């Protein structure tokens, strides 16, 4: 876990689509970290190139769906001469357990990383029981 190791490249995975997209463009699976603390579940998604206004987060039928659109207009007038990664939108879905308090989910984005905080509902927060 030390920061001294060499950083490797993680190949982008193209999204295996379960439903058809009508808009043209490629979709990739953003790299995700999920960790849990006593009070909440935190989800971190790497979506480089996606501006804050182009992130769409939806919850429907217990599925949390995150979609990030990149601005391809920035690449319009320039000619690629050497490429190592492909550019595309991002999409990923997560199934939520009913332990999550849906109304309290918050999201913020910084340096292309989206952080979603999913607080646990009151019933699911672990309780310490003191021994008398």
């Amino acid at each position: 876990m030390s920061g001294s190791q060499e950083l490797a490249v993680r190949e982008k995975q193209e999204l295996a689509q379960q439903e058809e997209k009508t808009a043209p463009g490629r979709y990739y699976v953003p790299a995700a970290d999920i960790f849990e603390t006593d009070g909440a579940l935190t989800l971190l998604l790497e979506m480089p190139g996606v501006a804050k206004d182009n992130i769409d987060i939806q919850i429907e039928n217990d599925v949390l769906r995150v979609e990030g659109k990149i601005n391809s207009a920035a690449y319009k007038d320039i000619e690629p001469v050497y490429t190592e990664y492909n550019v595309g939108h991002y999409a990923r879905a997560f199934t939520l357990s009913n332990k999550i308090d849906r109304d309290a989910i918050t999201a913020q984005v910084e340096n292309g990383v989206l952080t979603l905080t999913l607080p646990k509902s009151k019933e699911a927060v672990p309780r310490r029981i003191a021994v008398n």
Partner: protein
Amino acid sequence: MALFPDPFGTLLGLQNALDAFRRSDWLQSSPSAGGSYPPLNVFRKGDDFALVAEVPGISSSDLEIQVKGRTVRLSGSKTVKYPEEASVHRRERLQGRFDRSITLPIEVDQDRVTAECRDGILAITLPRAERDKPRSIRIG
């Protein structure tokens, strides 16, 4: 899928095919071979070049860019932090340090190089040095 041209896909596919044969020598041999972090794309706009890299989760203070002649060096480190008491369910984001240099086919005007880091994308504009530009000679 092929409703409209996709220059990235086409070029990336072509390059991968060429790499299977032998390493791409567009950026000359060794330090700039693919597979190094961060992955980058190079674009040309007129005489000038632009280098674009995906650096999500890295703040601009953790990035260092050096330019000399034809070479651009990009180094820094990325840290992924969790609270101490957290239990990690999934870990796909990688951390560590990186250092790579790229040799361009043009000479860069060091003083006019600009860099911008926004939404996890680093863009370095590399203007071609005036003395490196071809001169047209009028026939007298």
